[in-house]
């Protein structure tokens, strides 16, 4: 659902032609299948079972959920034409709200607390950008600074002088834990996938590991996050409200002239955006079982990057969130497996290099091959990366992917522009 379908009716010829002839969904599936084959190859060659183990993918899915929610939040705001750098701050607010409500009234309240606090951040952003016409990036940066101060202040007022482990930087533990689900027979009980995974067969065991990771003890919020992707697609692309919202991001003047309440829609979109970012924060609180200062660790920004990488489409941003979740999960599981990732990067870059050379783009092709050689050298020489370097794997992956992919991206036309009624 992320890529456009081809309208080219001429007879396809060669690999490129046949690729172009495929529909978007099929192309995505083909890409996923190829990637899986590649990863299992790398797994067999490097012997790093963590690359496709179910525990890695379970962690990856868990860490994908917050990024996915933030990216979805960004989608609502940016499709309505408001750039939201403040996602990180709204996520921080969400973690605090979840921590506070969670320790008082349990996990259901934590979800509501996170949603509410995030929505408050969104409301502030909407007031600044829509009503007062402040530059979107500036308002977002200010919200990020402010949110960090507000949660510190709230913790100082509420959590000081207690003896239950809470303090200026963390809340007490939650009153109850959220439920999680496993698919019966396949991933629990007989655990067929788990047995298949332990055989370490090429491709089959890898697929089993991935599937088992995605179906074992899936948190309730992860489930909600995954379900929100098609729901968002339907809401934004298949309803009148969605059309109006997107028209505010493409051409607010035209939308206004057709009777769309541009200000109101922008307000709604940015508040939803904040609420979803806050929900992303709730996931982090669920993982740690408490609120802790600095818990978000820049995930709001990674969500934003996933949104851009996904070309401002729900399917695309899911792919981005999964990629960063995988990088995050892998660096948590195994530091040596990150080195094996270099082999994967090398193989991918060789493919890209050859592809570019075939299309006679010599500079890009040679550059890709040089980087492939560098990655290969890194794989062969490095045993295990130090923690300082492993910690920014997701960020480096983000940067690399964006610099390889960003040319074909198209943001909503009026994204980031301040709209004043009657001034155009």
């Amino acid at each position, binding site marked *: 659902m992320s890529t456009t379908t081809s309208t080219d009716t001429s007879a396809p010829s060669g690999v490129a032609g046949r690729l172009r002839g495929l529909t978007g969904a099929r192309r995505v599936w083909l890409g996923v299948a190829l990637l899986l084959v590649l990863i299992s190859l790398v797994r067999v060659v490097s012997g790093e079972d963590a690359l496709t183990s179910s525990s890695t993918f379970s962690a990856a899915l868990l860490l994908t959920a917050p990024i996915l929610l933030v990216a979805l939040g960004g989608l609502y705001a940016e499709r309505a034409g408001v750039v939201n*750098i403040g996602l990180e701050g709204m996520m921080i607010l969400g973690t605090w709200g979840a921590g506070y409500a969670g320790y008082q009234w349990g996990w259901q309240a934590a979800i509501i607390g996170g949603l509410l606090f995030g929505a408050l951040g969104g409301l*502030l952003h909407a007031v*600044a950008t829509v009503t*007062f*016409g*402040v*530059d979107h*990036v*500036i*308002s977002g*940066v*200010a*919200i*990020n*600074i*402010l*949110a*960090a*101060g*507000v949660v*510190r*202040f*709230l913790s*100082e*007022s509420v959590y000081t002088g207690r003896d239950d482990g809470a303090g200026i930087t963390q809340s007490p533990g939650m009153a109850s834990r959220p439920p999680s689900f496993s698919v019966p027979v396949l991933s629990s009980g007989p655990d067929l996938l788990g047995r298949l995974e332990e055989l370490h067969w090429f491709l089959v065991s890898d697929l089993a590991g991935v599937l088992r990771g995605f179906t074992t003890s899936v948190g309730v919020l992860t489930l909600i996050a995954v379900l929100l992707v098609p729901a968002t697609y339907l809401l934004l692309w298949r309803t009148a409200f969605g059309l109006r919202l997107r028209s505010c991001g493409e051409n607010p003047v035209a939308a206004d002239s057709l009777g769309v309440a541009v200000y109101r829609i922008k307000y709604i979109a940015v508040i939803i955006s904040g609420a979803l970012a806050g929900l992303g924060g709730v996931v982090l609180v669920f993982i740690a079982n408490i609120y802790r200062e600095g818990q978000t660790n*820049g995930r709001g*920004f990674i969500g*934003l*990057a996933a949104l*851009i990488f996904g070309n401002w489409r729900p399917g695309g941003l899911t792919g981005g969130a999964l990629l960063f979740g995988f990088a995050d999960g892998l660096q948590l599981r195994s530091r040596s497996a990150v080195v094996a990732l270099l082999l994967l990067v090398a193989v991918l870059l060789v493919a890209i290099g050859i592809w570019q050379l075939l299309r006679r783009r010599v500079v890009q092709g040679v550059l890709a091959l040089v980087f492939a050689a560098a990655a290969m050298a890194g794989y062969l020489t490095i045993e295990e990366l*130090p*923690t*300082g*370097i492993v*910690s*920014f794997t997701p*960020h*480096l992956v*983000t*940067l690399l992917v*964006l*610099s*390889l992919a*960003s*040319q074909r*991206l198209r943001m909503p036309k009026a994204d980031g522009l*301040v709209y004043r009624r009657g001034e155009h």
Partner: protein
Amino acid sequence: MSPLRRWGAVLLAPAMALLIALAISGLVMGALGVNPFRVLSVMADFGDTPSQQVTQMVAVLNRALPLFLAGLAVAIGFRMGLFNIGVEGQYRMATIIAATVGAAVVLPGPLHVALIIAVAMVVGALWAGIVAVLKVTRGVSEVISSIMLNTIALGLASYLLTGPFRGSPEGASIVATAEIPESGRIGGLNGVFDVLGLANPPRQLYGFLLVAVVVGVLVWVLLQRTRFGFDLRATGLSPSAASASGVDARGMVVKTMLLSGAVAGLIGLPDLLGRTYEYNSDFTSGLGFLGIAVALLGRNSPAGIALAAVLYAFLDRASVPLQAAQLPSSVVTIIQGTIVLAVVVANEIARRLSRRAAERASRQAPSAPVPQAPQPAAAQEVTS
């Protein structure tokens, strides 16, 4: 227009914003049961003896120095419509590498200091250059790439500090680079207090103050009095008009980011050369983000940024006495955040009012030439 009215118009918006921000912060504090007037009185209390008071003033100035440089670095980008959010990473990389180089070489005094400054500027510029190159060649938004590079810089710095650049013995509680020898340090300026007849405080006023003043003046001259500065500001005000008049937009992006990064490289040096003499795991952090706030508050002009930096430093200084007085010190961050939001909103309102006034004037006298916007600062703003 009389200079009084002109300056009044420039200062009115920030002053109003400051009052509104204080009022909002006061309401928030009141709602959570903290007495805002007690907070204010603790903030304004500089101590009883003259020596204490001068000490506190030195503390404010020393803190204002890096904030000023950070604001300046951000403002250079802002003037051209570029968001350099990566100042944080740029100064971290610059400081750790400059500290290591400074500790490794032996040179006569001024040369040693000059080398450290040069290394810091080059590293800052290179780190910012990555952002520029990605933007120009690959179309990656500088906001995203600089945020990613911030995290990467923090990770790299922590790796370098615990790995190859480690100078402290194993098992020390604070990991640090090797110490910069005497010849690479900048002495204090406390002689000034004797000349002025003030009490000489135990704390040293950073000698880097002089360097910062020179940098501020140079940046002002570069932006306001050279062809390069004109191109830069023109691109910020209208990219399409600038490129139509022959400005190389891509080249300007690279040059501006390099300049901004070079200034950002200096941010860590007042502390490094005046107090710590080493980069350690406790080194001052968060200056890059505060720099954005300071640049906004100072409306991107060096003089305004200096004032804003002193204000922020004054607020920062208060966090220790606030803690001592059993008050939440995080009110400082809240006041700072509210000030930024209030200032950008006030700037926007002021811009709109002046625009409306200009429109009204041109309607009343259709034959007369359209008057200039009454606020010179409004024209300088590229961020709107």
